[in-house]
Protein backbone atom coordinates (compact mmCIF):
# COMPACT_ATOMS: atom_id res chain seq x y z
CA UNK A 1 0.00 0.00 0.00
CA UNK A 2 1.25 3.45 -0.79
CA UNK A 3 1.83 5.81 2.05
CA UNK A 4 -0.26 8.93 2.45
CA UNK A 5 1.16 11.83 0.46
CA UNK A 6 3.24 14.16 2.55
CA UNK A 7 1.90 17.68 2.77
CA UNK A 8 3.93 20.82 2.26
CA UNK A 9 3.15 21.84 5.84
CA UNK A 10 4.66 18.61 7.14
CA UNK A 11 7.80 19.09 5.10
CA UNK A 12 8.07 22.68 6.27
CA UNK A 13 7.79 21.59 9.91
CA UNK A 14 10.36 18.84 9.38
CA UNK A 15 12.85 21.22 7.78
CA UNK A 16 12.43 23.87 10.45
CA UNK A 17 12.92 21.29 13.19
CA UNK A 18 16.03 19.84 11.57
CA UNK A 19 17.69 23.03 10.33
CA UNK A 20 17.65 25.66 13.04
CA UNK A 21 17.03 29.18 11.81
CA UNK A 22 15.75 28.06 8.43
CA UNK A 23 12.83 30.13 7.20
CA UNK A 24 10.47 28.10 5.05
CA UNK A 25 7.41 29.63 3.48
CA UNK A 26 4.60 27.56 2.02
CA UNK A 27 3.36 28.88 -1.31
CA UNK A 28 -0.15 27.57 -1.82
CA UNK A 29 -1.29 26.38 -5.20
CA UNK A 30 -5.01 27.00 -5.56
CA UNK A 31 -5.47 24.78 -8.59
CA UNK A 32 -7.06 21.30 -8.29
CA UNK A 33 -3.63 19.68 -8.39
CA UNK A 34 -2.83 21.44 -5.13
CA UNK A 35 0.89 21.15 -5.60
CA UNK A 36 1.99 23.53 -2.88
CA UNK A 37 5.61 24.52 -2.85
CA UNK A 38 8.18 25.60 -0.29
CA UNK A 39 10.25 28.76 -0.53
CA UNK A 40 13.64 28.36 1.10
CA UNK A 41 15.86 31.16 2.34
CA UNK A 42 19.30 31.46 0.77
CA UNK A 43 21.47 30.89 3.83
CA UNK A 44 19.97 27.56 4.82
CA UNK A 45 18.88 26.28 1.41
CA UNK A 46 21.77 23.86 0.89
CA UNK A 47 21.47 22.51 4.40
CA UNK A 48 17.70 22.12 4.06
CA UNK A 49 18.16 20.41 0.70
CA UNK A 50 20.64 17.98 2.21
CA UNK A 51 18.12 17.23 4.95
CA UNK A 52 15.38 16.60 2.36
CA UNK A 53 17.67 14.20 0.55
CA UNK A 54 18.98 12.31 3.59
CA UNK A 55 16.06 12.29 6.02
CA UNK A 56 14.96 8.64 6.39
CA UNK A 57 11.25 9.41 6.04
CA UNK A 58 11.52 11.93 3.20
CA UNK A 59 14.52 10.54 1.22
CA UNK A 60 13.99 12.92 -1.71
CA UNK A 61 16.87 11.36 -3.59
CA UNK A 62 15.91 12.49 -7.08
CA UNK A 63 15.74 16.03 -8.44
CA UNK A 64 13.81 15.45 -11.63
CA UNK A 65 13.67 19.00 -12.85
CA UNK A 66 14.91 22.46 -12.08
CA UNK A 67 13.64 25.46 -13.96
CA UNK A 68 13.51 29.23 -13.79
CA UNK A 69 10.71 31.73 -13.63
CA UNK A 70 10.91 35.44 -14.37
CA UNK A 71 8.57 37.63 -12.38
CA UNK A 72 8.38 41.17 -13.69
CA UNK A 73 7.73 44.22 -11.54
CA UNK A 74 4.02 44.20 -10.92
CA UNK A 75 1.38 46.39 -9.37
CA UNK A 76 -0.96 44.96 -6.83
CA UNK A 77 -4.26 46.81 -6.59
CA UNK A 78 -6.69 46.12 -3.77
CA UNK A 79 -9.87 47.83 -2.80
CA UNK A 80 -9.75 49.33 0.66
CA UNK A 81 -12.55 51.04 2.55
CA UNK A 82 -11.34 54.34 3.95
CA UNK A 83 -13.24 56.79 6.16
CA UNK A 84 -13.18 60.25 4.66
CA UNK A 85 -14.75 63.58 5.31
CA UNK A 86 -17.11 64.28 2.46
CA UNK A 87 -19.08 67.55 2.75
CA UNK A 88 -18.44 67.68 6.47
CA UNK A 89 -19.83 64.21 7.13
CA UNK A 90 -17.68 61.17 7.70
CA UNK A 91 -18.46 58.52 5.13
CA UNK A 92 -16.88 55.28 4.03
CA UNK A 93 -15.33 55.53 0.60
CA UNK A 94 -13.83 52.67 -1.38
CA UNK A 95 -10.35 53.41 -2.57
CA UNK A 96 -8.08 51.39 -4.80
CA UNK A 97 -4.72 51.13 -3.16
CA UNK A 98 -1.87 50.25 -5.45
CA UNK A 99 1.33 48.74 -4.20
CA UNK A 100 4.32 48.07 -6.37
CA UNK A 101 5.75 44.59 -6.11
CA UNK A 102 9.36 44.48 -7.31
CA UNK A 103 10.20 41.70 -9.75
CA UNK A 104 12.50 38.81 -9.02
CA UNK A 105 13.84 35.63 -10.54
CA UNK A 106 12.96 32.22 -9.21
CA UNK A 107 14.42 28.74 -9.40
CA UNK A 108 12.01 25.82 -8.96
CA UNK A 109 13.14 22.28 -8.12
CA UNK A 110 10.91 19.22 -8.38
CA UNK A 111 12.01 16.53 -5.96
CA UNK A 112 10.94 12.91 -5.82
CA UNK A 113 11.90 9.89 -3.76
CA UNK A 114 12.71 6.84 -5.81
CA UNK A 115 13.27 4.87 -2.65
CA UNK A 116 10.02 5.85 -0.90
CA UNK A 117 8.04 6.28 -4.13
CA UNK A 118 6.65 9.67 -3.23
CA UNK A 119 6.79 13.18 -4.54
CA UNK A 120 6.92 15.69 -5.92
CA UNK A 121 8.04 18.09 -3.24
CA UNK A 122 8.50 21.45 -4.92
CA UNK A 123 11.17 23.77 -3.61
CA UNK A 124 11.66 27.35 -4.74
CA UNK A 125 14.24 30.04 -4.18
CA UNK A 126 13.87 33.68 -5.11
CA UNK A 127 16.45 36.34 -5.92
CA UNK A 128 16.36 39.81 -4.44
CA UNK A 129 15.62 41.52 -7.74
CA UNK A 130 16.11 41.07 -11.49
CA UNK A 131 19.22 43.22 -11.98
CA UNK A 132 21.96 43.13 -9.34
CA UNK A 133 20.93 40.71 -6.64
CA UNK A 134 20.48 37.69 -8.89
CA UNK A 135 22.43 35.21 -6.79
CA UNK A 136 21.04 31.94 -5.46
CA UNK A 137 22.84 29.09 -3.71
CA UNK A 138 23.51 26.13 -5.98
CA UNK A 139 21.93 22.80 -5.06
CA UNK A 140 24.19 20.85 -7.44
CA UNK A 141 26.18 19.69 -4.43
CA UNK A 142 23.07 17.95 -3.13
CA UNK A 143 21.54 16.70 -6.37
CA UNK A 144 24.07 16.22 -9.15
CA UNK A 145 21.22 16.18 -11.69
CA UNK A 146 20.72 19.89 -11.05
CA UNK A 147 24.08 20.78 -12.62
CA UNK A 148 22.99 21.22 -16.23
CA UNK A 149 19.58 22.51 -15.23
CA UNK A 150 21.11 25.26 -13.12
CA UNK A 151 23.40 26.08 -16.04
CA UNK A 152 20.32 26.35 -18.23
CA UNK A 153 18.63 28.67 -15.73
CA UNK A 154 21.79 30.77 -15.65
CA UNK A 155 21.92 30.78 -19.45
CA UNK A 156 18.31 31.72 -20.10
CA UNK A 157 17.31 33.73 -17.01
CA UNK A 158 20.60 35.09 -15.67
CA UNK A 159 20.41 33.60 -12.21
CA UNK A 160 23.93 33.19 -10.78
CA UNK A 161 24.23 30.02 -8.72
CA UNK A 162 26.87 30.43 -6.03
CA UNK A 163 28.84 27.24 -5.48
CA UNK A 164 28.02 25.74 -8.88
CA UNK A 165 31.04 23.73 -10.09
CA UNK A 166 30.88 24.81 -13.74
CA UNK A 167 28.56 27.75 -14.32
CA UNK A 168 28.85 28.40 -18.06
CA UNK A 169 26.25 29.05 -20.70
CA UNK A 170 24.63 25.84 -21.87
CA UNK A 171 22.44 26.52 -24.91
CA UNK A 172 23.67 29.91 -26.07
CA UNK A 173 27.27 30.67 -26.96
CA UNK A 174 29.68 32.07 -24.39
CA UNK A 175 29.87 35.52 -26.01
CA UNK A 176 26.09 35.98 -25.79
CA UNK A 177 25.11 38.77 -23.41
CA UNK A 178 21.29 38.54 -23.10
CA UNK A 179 18.98 36.23 -21.20
CA UNK A 180 16.44 35.10 -23.79
CA UNK A 181 13.79 33.60 -21.53
CA UNK A 182 13.35 36.79 -19.53
CA UNK A 183 10.01 38.39 -20.22
CA UNK A 184 11.56 41.70 -21.27
CA UNK A 185 14.00 40.08 -23.72
CA UNK A 186 13.89 41.71 -27.13
CA UNK A 187 15.20 39.50 -29.95
CA UNK A 188 17.47 41.13 -32.53
CA UNK A 189 15.57 42.97 -35.23
CA UNK A 190 15.21 41.08 -38.48
CA UNK A 191 14.37 42.85 -41.70
CA UNK A 192 12.78 39.70 -43.09
CA UNK A 193 10.10 39.67 -40.41
CA UNK A 194 6.82 40.43 -42.10
CA UNK A 195 4.86 40.94 -38.90
CA UNK A 196 5.31 44.01 -36.76
CA UNK A 197 8.63 45.14 -38.11
CA UNK A 198 9.00 48.22 -40.24
CA UNK A 199 10.23 47.30 -43.64
CA UNK A 200 12.73 49.45 -45.42
CA UNK A 201 12.04 50.37 -49.01
CA UNK A 202 8.49 49.04 -48.80
Amino acid at each position, binding site marked *: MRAEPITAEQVKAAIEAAVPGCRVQVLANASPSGQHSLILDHEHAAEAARFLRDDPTLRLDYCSNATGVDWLDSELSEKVKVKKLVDGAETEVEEVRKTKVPGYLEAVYHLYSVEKKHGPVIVRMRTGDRKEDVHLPSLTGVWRSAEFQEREIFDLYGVIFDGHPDLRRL*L*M*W*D*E*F*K*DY*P*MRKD*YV*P*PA*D*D*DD*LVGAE*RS*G*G
Partner: protein
Amino acid sequence: MRAGLGGVMDEELKNLKAELSKHGVFTTTFEELYNWGRKNSVWPLTFGLACCAIEMIATTMARYDLARFGAEVFRASPRQADLIIVSGTVTKKMAPQVVRLYNQMPEPKYVIAMGACAISGGPFRDGYNVLKGIDRYIPVDVHIPGCPPRPEALIDAFMTLQKKIDAQQLTGEDRPRHLKEDLPSEFPVPEYGEHDLEPPNNAEVWNPLKVIQK
Protein backbone atom coordinates in the same frame (compact mmCIF):
# COMPACT_ATOMS: atom_id res chain seq x y z
CA MET B 1 31.05 20.96 -76.89
CA ARG B 2 28.41 23.56 -76.94
CA ALA B 3 30.73 26.54 -77.14
CA GLY B 4 29.92 28.99 -79.87
CA LEU B 5 26.92 27.08 -81.13
CA GLY B 6 23.73 29.01 -81.58
CA GLY B 7 20.18 27.88 -80.86
CA VAL B 8 19.62 26.87 -84.47
CA MET B 9 22.72 24.70 -84.45
CA ASP B 10 21.57 23.13 -81.19
CA GLU B 11 18.32 22.22 -82.80
CA GLU B 12 20.08 20.84 -85.87
CA LEU B 13 22.47 18.82 -83.71
CA LYS B 14 19.53 17.38 -81.81
CA ASN B 15 17.85 16.34 -85.04
CA LEU B 16 21.10 14.86 -86.33
CA LYS B 17 21.57 12.89 -83.12
CA ALA B 18 18.02 11.59 -83.29
CA GLU B 19 18.47 10.61 -86.92
CA LEU B 20 21.80 8.88 -86.24
CA SER B 21 20.37 6.96 -83.27
CA LYS B 22 17.70 5.55 -85.58
CA HIS B 23 20.52 4.00 -87.56
CA GLY B 24 22.24 2.59 -84.52
CA VAL B 25 24.87 5.28 -84.17
CA PHE B 26 25.23 6.72 -80.68
CA THR B 27 26.54 10.25 -80.43
CA THR B 28 27.04 12.49 -77.45
CA THR B 29 28.90 15.59 -76.32
CA PHE B 30 31.49 16.01 -73.64
CA GLU B 31 29.07 18.21 -71.77
CA GLU B 32 26.32 15.63 -71.79
CA LEU B 33 28.67 12.86 -70.77
CA TYR B 34 30.22 14.96 -68.02
CA ASN B 35 26.89 16.08 -66.60
CA TRP B 36 25.41 12.58 -66.93
CA GLY B 37 28.25 11.24 -64.82
CA ARG B 38 27.99 14.01 -62.26
CA LYS B 39 24.26 13.93 -61.80
CA ASN B 40 24.24 10.19 -61.18
CA SER B 41 26.92 10.16 -58.52
CA VAL B 42 26.04 13.00 -56.19
CA TRP B 43 27.40 11.97 -52.83
CA PRO B 44 25.68 13.66 -49.91
CA LEU B 45 27.33 14.56 -46.63
CA THR B 46 26.44 12.50 -43.56
CA PHE B 47 24.84 15.39 -41.82
CA GLY B 48 21.50 15.66 -40.03
CA LEU B 49 20.12 18.29 -37.72
CA ALA B 50 16.66 17.28 -36.53
CA CYS B 51 13.55 15.30 -37.40
CA CYS B 52 14.03 15.95 -41.14
CA ALA B 53 17.21 13.89 -40.85
CA ILE B 54 15.08 10.88 -39.90
CA GLU B 55 13.16 11.27 -43.16
CA MET B 56 16.46 11.68 -44.98
CA ILE B 57 17.71 8.42 -43.44
CA ALA B 58 14.46 6.71 -44.41
CA THR B 59 14.97 7.95 -47.97
CA THR B 60 18.28 6.15 -48.16
CA MET B 61 16.86 2.87 -46.87
CA ALA B 62 15.43 0.03 -48.92
CA ARG B 63 11.85 1.26 -49.18
CA TYR B 64 12.64 4.59 -50.86
CA ASP B 65 16.14 3.64 -51.94
CA LEU B 66 18.02 6.77 -52.88
CA ALA B 67 20.63 4.42 -54.34
CA ARG B 68 18.49 4.32 -57.50
CA PHE B 69 19.74 7.85 -58.11
CA GLY B 70 23.37 7.15 -57.35
CA ALA B 71 23.30 9.07 -54.08
CA GLU B 72 23.43 6.31 -51.51
CA VAL B 73 27.04 6.90 -50.54
CA PHE B 74 26.71 9.33 -47.66
CA ARG B 75 30.23 10.50 -47.00
CA ALA B 76 31.38 11.09 -43.45
CA SER B 77 33.78 13.82 -44.55
CA PRO B 78 32.89 17.08 -46.30
CA ARG B 79 36.05 16.64 -48.40
CA GLN B 80 34.39 13.75 -50.22
CA ALA B 81 30.85 15.12 -50.44
CA ASP B 82 29.13 16.89 -53.33
CA LEU B 83 25.87 17.73 -51.61
CA ILE B 84 24.90 18.96 -48.17
CA ILE B 85 21.29 18.28 -47.20
CA VAL B 86 20.45 20.77 -44.47
CA SER B 87 17.86 18.58 -42.81
CA GLY B 88 16.36 20.32 -39.82
CA THR B 89 16.40 23.38 -37.62
CA VAL B 90 19.64 25.34 -37.82
CA THR B 91 20.28 26.94 -34.47
CA LYS B 92 22.33 30.09 -34.39
CA LYS B 93 24.90 28.18 -32.39
CA MET B 94 25.10 25.54 -35.15
CA ALA B 95 25.02 27.91 -38.14
CA PRO B 96 28.80 28.67 -38.22
CA GLN B 97 29.52 24.93 -38.25
CA VAL B 98 27.11 24.38 -41.17
CA VAL B 99 28.83 27.13 -43.16
CA ARG B 100 32.24 25.72 -42.24
CA LEU B 101 31.23 22.25 -43.44
CA TYR B 102 29.98 23.75 -46.69
CA ASN B 103 33.26 25.63 -47.12
CA GLN B 104 35.20 22.40 -46.65
CA MET B 105 33.38 20.66 -49.51
CA PRO B 106 35.13 20.63 -52.88
CA GLU B 107 33.51 22.19 -55.94
CA PRO B 108 31.14 21.52 -57.58
CA LYS B 109 28.93 21.44 -54.51
CA TYR B 110 25.22 21.71 -53.98
CA VAL B 111 22.84 22.47 -51.13
CA ILE B 112 19.35 21.13 -50.49
CA ALA B 113 17.48 22.98 -47.74
CA MET B 114 15.12 20.32 -46.43
CA GLY B 115 12.00 21.27 -44.52
CA ALA B 116 10.36 24.37 -43.13
CA CYS B 117 13.11 25.01 -40.57
CA ALA B 118 16.03 24.88 -42.99
CA ILE B 119 14.31 27.20 -45.44
CA SER B 120 12.82 29.73 -43.02
CA GLY B 121 13.12 28.70 -39.38
CA GLY B 122 9.75 26.98 -39.62
CA PRO B 123 7.65 26.65 -36.48
CA PHE B 124 10.66 27.72 -34.42
CA ARG B 125 11.21 30.89 -36.43
CA ASP B 126 10.64 33.18 -33.45
CA GLY B 127 12.86 31.14 -31.17
CA TYR B 128 15.74 33.01 -29.59
CA ASN B 129 18.37 30.66 -31.02
CA VAL B 130 16.92 29.75 -34.42
CA LEU B 131 18.38 30.79 -37.74
CA LYS B 132 15.62 31.94 -40.07
CA GLY B 133 16.82 29.92 -43.05
CA ILE B 134 20.24 28.61 -44.06
CA ASP B 135 20.02 30.60 -47.32
CA ARG B 136 21.18 33.59 -45.27
CA TYR B 137 24.72 32.24 -45.36
CA ILE B 138 25.12 29.69 -48.16
CA PRO B 139 23.56 29.44 -51.63
CA VAL B 140 20.72 26.91 -51.67
CA ASP B 141 20.00 24.99 -54.89
CA VAL B 142 16.73 23.30 -53.96
CA HIS B 143 14.27 24.24 -51.20
CA ILE B 144 11.86 21.56 -49.97
CA PRO B 145 8.83 22.72 -48.00
CA GLY B 146 7.20 20.39 -45.50
CA CYS B 147 7.39 19.59 -41.82
CA PRO B 148 9.03 17.18 -42.24
CA PRO B 149 8.94 16.56 -46.00
CA ARG B 150 8.17 12.97 -46.91
CA PRO B 151 10.92 10.86 -48.52
CA GLU B 152 9.14 11.31 -51.86
CA ALA B 153 9.63 15.07 -51.49
CA LEU B 154 13.34 14.60 -50.87
CA ILE B 155 13.56 12.33 -53.91
CA ASP B 156 11.73 14.97 -55.94
CA ALA B 157 14.21 17.59 -54.71
CA PHE B 158 17.02 15.27 -55.62
CA MET B 159 15.64 14.78 -59.14
CA THR B 160 15.26 18.56 -59.40
CA LEU B 161 18.92 18.88 -58.51
CA GLN B 162 19.81 16.24 -61.11
CA LYS B 163 17.92 18.21 -63.76
CA LYS B 164 19.75 21.33 -62.66
CA ILE B 165 23.13 19.61 -62.96
CA ASP B 166 22.15 18.13 -66.32
CA ALA B 167 21.28 21.56 -67.69
CA GLN B 168 24.54 23.17 -66.64
CA GLN B 169 26.65 24.49 -69.50
CA LEU B 170 30.37 24.05 -69.11
CA THR B 171 31.31 27.09 -71.15
CA GLY B 172 29.88 30.48 -71.90
CA GLU B 173 28.34 33.14 -69.74
CA ASP B 174 25.73 30.82 -68.20
CA ARG B 175 28.23 28.35 -66.80
CA PRO B 176 27.75 27.48 -63.12
CA ARG B 177 29.50 29.11 -60.21
CA HIS B 178 32.23 26.52 -59.82
CA LEU B 179 33.45 27.20 -63.36
CA LYS B 180 33.63 30.95 -62.85
CA GLU B 181 36.96 31.70 -61.28
CA ASP B 182 36.00 35.09 -59.89
CA LEU B 183 33.03 33.74 -57.94
CA PRO B 184 33.62 32.51 -54.39
CA SER B 185 33.64 28.86 -53.42
CA GLU B 186 33.76 29.63 -49.72
CA PHE B 187 31.52 31.94 -47.77
CA PRO B 188 32.26 33.91 -44.60
CA VAL B 189 31.59 31.96 -41.41
CA PRO B 190 29.43 34.08 -39.09
CA GLU B 191 30.86 34.98 -35.71
CA TYR B 192 29.12 34.64 -32.35
CA GLY B 193 28.10 38.17 -31.40
CA GLU B 194 26.85 39.61 -28.13
CA HIS B 195 23.22 39.62 -29.25
CA ASP B 196 23.11 37.75 -32.56
CA LEU B 197 25.32 36.19 -35.17
CA GLU B 198 27.68 38.68 -36.81
CA PRO B 199 26.72 39.39 -39.52
CA PRO B 200 23.07 38.26 -39.28
CA ASN B 201 23.16 37.33 -42.97
CA ASN B 202 25.46 37.36 -45.96
CA ALA B 203 24.04 40.00 -48.28
CA GLU B 204 25.87 38.51 -51.27
CA VAL B 205 24.04 35.22 -50.92
CA TRP B 206 20.75 36.14 -49.36
CA ASN B 207 18.10 37.61 -51.62
CA PRO B 208 14.88 37.79 -49.64
CA LEU B 209 11.63 38.47 -51.40
CA LYS B 210 10.65 42.09 -51.06
CA VAL B 211 7.17 42.87 -49.79
CA ILE B 212 5.74 45.71 -51.80
CA GLN B 213 3.09 47.66 -49.95
CA LYS B 214 0.76 49.83 -51.98
